[in-house]
Structures are given as structure tokens and as C-alpha cells.
């Protein structure tokens, strides 16, 4: 019985990781076929770095993810603080409403924003995408920061206030350093989701505002080249770096609490 369980675990991991491994391996292929091995080469990476479209897409992705992460981290942290530290009338309703963008299918959220932008004649460009990304990012930041605030000891703040610190000083000297690992964790998660998002970006971006995900999608649709494997591997490395950062902050999270 135990052996069957172990075989199941092994199969699940093979299933989860073989496809990812395949992409990485074939990004070093010298041939121009996406899945027929012809020999080791870095040619597709060289080509990737010389492609101005990729750089432009990369820049757009970073701008969108950076700004959306900043806005959603501020708003999400404020919401988490209010929900965890106060009891107020609309608390339950707000918590539910906050998580609603995660429950409805992303294509519905994308369409809703698109029709809204069309209706109010809001120009579609980078700003329209950023505003849209903040909607789902707020929810993730709030979840991560709330987790950090759980079991938070209010008496330290009271002590600071008793000792003569004002509200503002108490927040920046006491509250903020204590919840900082949660805020950074939430921001990293928001940044990753923003970089990876395709559906919402695809519908809310204007023509000519291509992000990396949208670039990958168009290459998928109009001609598969091994360049795709190389871009994918670069994004994969990026994700792994972000995971390691997230874990490192989470490790600090548990040490200090």
C-alpha cells in the first residue's frame, strides 16, 4: 500500500515537471524545430537578446507589474490592517467583495473591464492594464498581509503610545517593521502574477502595448520557433528567483513571530 502511494507521488511529480524540463532542454537546441533535438547551442538566446520586440515587451511587462504591485501593496496592506485590527459594520461584506475578483473567471473580469473602458471611452494603453491588474492583486496582497497580522500582539503598539509616541511614529517604528515580511511577500506574489497574467492584459491593453505574455501568445499563434523555448526559460528563471525571495521572506516571517 505504501509503495502504491509512493508510485503515485512519483508519477505526479513526473507529470508536473517533465513538461517544464522539456521546454528548458529544447531552449538549448541548435535546430529550428521546437521539439526535434539537433545539438546544443545558445543561438536562440543570442537571437532573443537582439530582438527589439522582446525588449519592448519586457519593458512594458516590468512597468505594468511594477506600478500595479506598488498600488496594490499600499491599498491591500491598508485593507488588511483595517480588517484585522478593527470591527466595523461592513467588515464581512468587504472581505467577501475583496475576494470576489479571484472567484469569477479571469475572462469575465477582462470582458467587464473592456466593456467598461469602451463605455466610458477610457483610452486603452498601459494605464488601463495597470488599473485592471490592481483589482486582482489587491486580493492577493490582502490575503498574505492578513496571514501575517494573525496573532499580532496589539499591546506593543499600546506600549509605544503610552511611552509618548504618536500614531504615525507607532506605525512606522512598530507596526510596519513587524508586518514588513508579509507586505514584501504579498508584493512579490502580486508582481509574479502581474508579469504572468495574460488574459486580463490581452483584453485591456491597447494595440501596440505588448507584454511578454502577450508576445509569447502571439508567437504561439503565428509560427512556433525555438525562440519561444528561450523566452519561456528566461521567464522560468525569473519565477524561480521570485519564489526563492518569497520563501526567504517567509522564513524570516516565522523566525520573528
Amino acid at each position, binding site marked *: 500500500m*505504501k509503495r502504491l*502511494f509512493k508510485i503515485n*507521488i512519483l508519477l*505526479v*511529480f513526473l*507529470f*508536473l515537471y517533465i*513538461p*517544464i524540463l*522539456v*521546454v528548458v532542454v529544447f531552449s538549448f537546441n541548435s535546430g529550428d524545430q*521546437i*521539439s*526535434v533535438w539537433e545539438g546544443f547551442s545558445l543561438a536562440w538566446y543570442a537571437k532573443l537578446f537582439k530582438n527589439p520586440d522582446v525588449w519592448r515587451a519586457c519593458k512594458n511587462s516590468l512597468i505594468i507589474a511594477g506600478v500595479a504591485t506598488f498600488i496594490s501593496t*499600499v*491599498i491591500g496592506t*491598508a*485593507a488588511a*490592517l*483595517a480588517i484585522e485590527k*478593527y470591527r466595523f459594520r461592513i467588515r464581512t461584506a*468587504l472581505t467577501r*467583495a475583496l475576494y*470576489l*475578483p479571484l*472567484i*469569477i*473567471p*479571469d*475572462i*469575465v*473580469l477582462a*470582458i*467587464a473591464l*473592456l*466593456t*467598461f473602458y*469602451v*463605455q466610458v471611452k477610457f483610452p486603452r494603453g498601459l494605464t488601463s492594464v495597470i488599473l485592471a491588474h*490592481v*483589482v486582482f492583486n*489587491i486580493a492577493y496582497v490582502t490575503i498574505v498581509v492578513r496571514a501575517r497580522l494573525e496573532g499580532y500582539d496589539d499591546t506593543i503598539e499600546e506600549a509605544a503610545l503610552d511611552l509618548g509616541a504618536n*500614531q504615525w511614529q507607532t506605525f512606522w517604528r512598530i507596526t510596519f517593521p513587524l508586518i514588513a515580511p508579509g507586505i514584501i511577500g504579498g508584493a512579490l506574489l502580486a508582481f*509574479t502574477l502581474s*508579469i*504572468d497574467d*495574460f*488574459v486580463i492584459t490581452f483584453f485591456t491593453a491597447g494595440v501596440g502595448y505588448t507584454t511578454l*505574455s502577450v508576445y*509569447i*501568445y502571439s508567437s*504561439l499563434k503565428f509560427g*512556433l520557433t525555438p525562440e519561444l*523555448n528561450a523566452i*519561456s526559460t528566461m*521567464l*522560468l528563471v525569473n*519565477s*524561480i528567483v521570485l519564489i526563492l525571495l518569497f*520563501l526567504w521572506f517567509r522564513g524570516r516571517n516565522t523566525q520573528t513571530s
Partner: protein
Amino acid sequence: MHRNYRLLILLSPVILWLLCFFFVPLISVLTYSFVERGTSGGIEWNFTLENYQRLFDGLYLGILWRSVSTAFVCTAICLLVGYPFAYYLACYRPKWRNALLLLVVVPFWINFLIRTYAWILILRTEGLLNSFLTFLIPGFQPLELLNTPLAVQIGLVYGYLPFMILPLYAALEQLDLSLIDAAKDLGASPRHAFWHITLPLSLPGILAGSMLVFIPTVGAFLTPDILGGGKVSFIGNVIERQFKTALDYPFGSALSFMLMAIVLVGTVLYFRALQGSES
């Protein structure tokens, strides 16, 4: 600072944002779904129910059925594969438990587009699976796997399996193992103990995992688009076509609203079932 004043500062940004960029847009889709289509992507402000009547066309009912049934099969497969996985991790507590759990979470951080694309490399006619089988079996004829319902099904299970495993693990981990020991001491067979104790107690995890898999798969757009190659359409793909090629915004809005209704009804049923299982 007054308490209410502080609350106002903390809460007004999130409330304003949700109102402007979530609830108002939802109302915008709703109004679009009740008006007539204009020329080249425009609309005519005349009230009509035609967009909803079109949903009952055989073509769209077929696509709706495909989305729902594929999502259902996907949920069932994830449950059958994920349950023993989570059970082993939670109840046998192997040494590498945390590392194994982390490895389940990692794919969540990797671009969904890339994870789906990877299956093209494996499933295409000249892809790795066919090469492997040709190498293994002499005279093997390569299979047409890509752009089939099977490819979409595989892609969906691949994309959402971690969403099933994590809540199952969370539920099973909280399980009091002494209850199972007690049942066995009282003469229950391991199978009996599983069906009467472990399974009912892990029901909240089963429900949560099923919801987390079912909801995104029923609204899936990318997986059927990439691995179905336009031949295996889901509701999500029909919606995309209304906005990107057919430029029939009102009908696309009606489809979106129906999809959202399905998901919200599913969510409400989930919470009902959860309350039922806890009482």
C-alpha cells in the same frame, strides 16, 4: 486620531477601487448584454433579450455542455490523483513532506502560458511522446494528439492539479489520527475506518479543492485555445471571439454573464455543502 477617521483612510482606497474597477464594470457588462449590436463593434441602445435567447441555440448549448462536462471530468481526475497524494503526505508524514509540498506549489508561480505551451512540444505529431512511442514500438504510427479534446483535458488537469492537492492536504493534516486508531481498536478494518472516518472528515478539503479546480476550468480560455487549436471551444473561447473577431459585444457580454452566473451558483452551492458537512 479618531477611530472612524483612521478606518476611513485605510478603507476608502480599497472600496473606491473595487467600486470603480470591479462592480461598475460588472454593471457595464450587464447593460451591454441587454442591448442590440451595432456596426463594427458598436452597440445600439435598444433594449433586447435576443442575446440571451441566442444562448439556447444548439451550438452554444453544446459548447456549454462541453465546458461543464470537461471541467467535471477534470475535477474528478484531480481528486482521484490528488487524494492519495495528499493522504500520504498528511498521514504518513514522510521526512521530505515540506519539500514535496513546496514542489507542488512551484508550478503555481510559473507562467500558465508556458506550462500550457510545454504540452505542444510533447503532444504534437512530431512531438516527444510520438517520438518516444515510435522508438519503443517498431512500426508505430504517430498519433494526432494535439488539437483534440484529450489534449485540452490533459492541459487542464496539469494546470489545476496543485489547486486540488493543497486544500486536501490542509484538511487531512488536521485530522486527528487517534480517531482512526480508536476505530481500529474497536475492530474496524482499515477500509472501514477510511470510509467512515477519514473520508467524511476530509470532506471540507474535497469540497474546497473541487471548487478551486472546477471554477477556473469551466471558464478556461487559454488551455482550449492553445491545446485545442480552435477545434475544441469552451465558453471562454466563444466569448473571446465575440470581442476580438466577431465584434458582437452584446452577445459576448451575455455569454460572460452566464459564465459568471454558473460560477456564482457553484460557489453558493459549495458554501451550502460545506455548512452541511460541518454540522
